[in-house]
């Protein structure tokens, strides 16, 4: 039976520990070595389009990155995607999925769900591009996720960087 004390290195990194088995270490090119417990791992069914052979990820919040979180691959250390909750940019954002799609990742009700969109931003850009047509739907209950193809999406996802910051500052 292992003790309950958290090793100092994990505490320093601020890793959230679950109960259960010992966490594994993964190296990442942006965040160094991280410890991930089994129950923190997100599995994307079918993977992301263009990366369908990869399904194991972890969500990382980098302290300096505000509303953005990172979807870090646990299978390729250099692969990570910034994510943001689309509701922060589009407060009226509403995603409808069929019961069949919901069943794919075991969604039983709305509260189980956390939605993210992938963010593309290059150095020198004044705008970021949110992938509104392919939101990532995460089921908090079982850590299964999928990239849903939203053919009805009417948001362009092109967002001025400056105005995002200002909007947030004005409490919008």
């Amino acid at each position, binding site marked *: 039976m292992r003790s309950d004390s958290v090793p100092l290195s994990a505490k320093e*990194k*601020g890793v*959230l520990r679950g109960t259960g088995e010992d966490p594994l270490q993964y190296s990442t090119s*942006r*965040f160094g070595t*991280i*410890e991930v*417990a089994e129950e*923190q*791992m*997100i599995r994307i*069914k*079918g993977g*992301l*389009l*263009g*990366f369908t052979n990869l399904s194991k990820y*972890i*969500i*990382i*919040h*980098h*302290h*300096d*990155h*505000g*509303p*953005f*979180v990172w979807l870090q691959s646990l299978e390729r250390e250099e692969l*990570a*995607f*910034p994510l943001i*909750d689309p509701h*922060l940019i589009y407060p009226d954002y509403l995603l409808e999925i069929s019961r069949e799609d919901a069943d794919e990742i075991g969604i039983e009700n709305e509260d189980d769900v*956390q939605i*993210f969109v*992938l*963010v*593309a*931003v*290059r*150095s020198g*850009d004044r705008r970021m*591009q949110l*992938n509104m*047509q*392919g939101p990532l739907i*995460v089921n*908090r*209950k079982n*850590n299964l996720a999928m*990239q849903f*193809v939203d053919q009805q999406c009417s948001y362009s996802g092109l967002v001025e*960087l400056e105005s*995002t*910051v200002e909007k*947030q*500052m*004005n*409490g919008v």
Partner: protein
Amino acid sequence: MLILARKSNESINIGDDIVITVLSIDGGTVKLGVEAPKEVKLLRGEVYERISKTNQEAANSDFNLLNNLSVDKVAGHQEKRWLPGSGDGLPVVAVAGKRRKDPRS
């Protein structure tokens, strides 16, 4: 690319589990029926291209650019709402950055 000519009602098998059938041909439009297991993603070519291209661009995002949307500018009014999973069950690994003002303190 394998090139095959098919007439209406003829089909193509891909592996053991995928069948594409020509349902009808009308002018310049071919109607195709596709049978495949649930886990295989079937998408119109242009939809697949658009989403996978945007995914790739996201993977190439500039890490430091997000740095500049600093926490003290962005976080103030939303409290913890922008940190998904804080207390809500979504597992998030927190990574310490260069600590400036911690808006949560």
